[in-house]
């Protein structure tokens, strides 16, 4: 029961997180939202008994992707 309540809460958070990522304006802010959303997903996967996916989502969704995007943003802001 505990698990299920936790899952519902996190699912709601993840749904809100996705909405937030899409709605936020400003590139850097969006990347920060994406990173937070990635952490949310990782927690969700953990409650769904998927530690492998949790670890992957943490290293990719919350770290690697934001890094790639931030570097890209840094590059395209430059010279403008």
């Amino acid at each position, binding site marked *: 029961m505990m*698990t*299920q309540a936790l*899952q*519902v809460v996190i*699912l*709601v958070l*993840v*749904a809100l997180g*996705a*909405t937030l*990522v*899409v*709605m936020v304006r400003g*590139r850097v802010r*969006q*990347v920060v939202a*994406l990173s937070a*959303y990635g952490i949310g*997903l990782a927690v*969700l*996967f953990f409650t*769904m*008994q*998927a*530690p*492998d*996916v949790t670890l*992957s*989502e943490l290293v*990719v*969704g919350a770290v*690697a*992707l934001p890094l*790639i*995007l931030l*570097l*890209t*943003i840094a*590059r*395209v802001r430059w010279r*403008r």
Partner: protein
Amino acid sequence: MTYFPYLVAAWILACGLYGLVTNRDLIHQIICLIVVQSSTYVMLLATGYVTGGIAPYFSDVPGSPKAVDPVVQALALTDVVVEAAVTALLASFAIQAHKRFGTLDPQDLAEFKG
């Protein structure tokens, strides 16, 4: 709760598509594409979940209780790698587009390409 996780996945998918359609900045659109893909992890993992199941590891649990489905987790792992790869490639396209066109608005990209 019966269908709630699936509906959340569908919601995330719809959010991502909405962002792809309405945003006018390539970086935003790449991020929306990431959101679209993240819906597939939720969908995959939700379909393989077993209530009360444990993670599929059998190191020190003799006579182990039922575990959740390991297959969807393996699929989701593959999916995560695909996401990282596609994002990196799209990021390089965006950089190059910015170099050539000086803008990342898809509307302008379409008009200036001549």
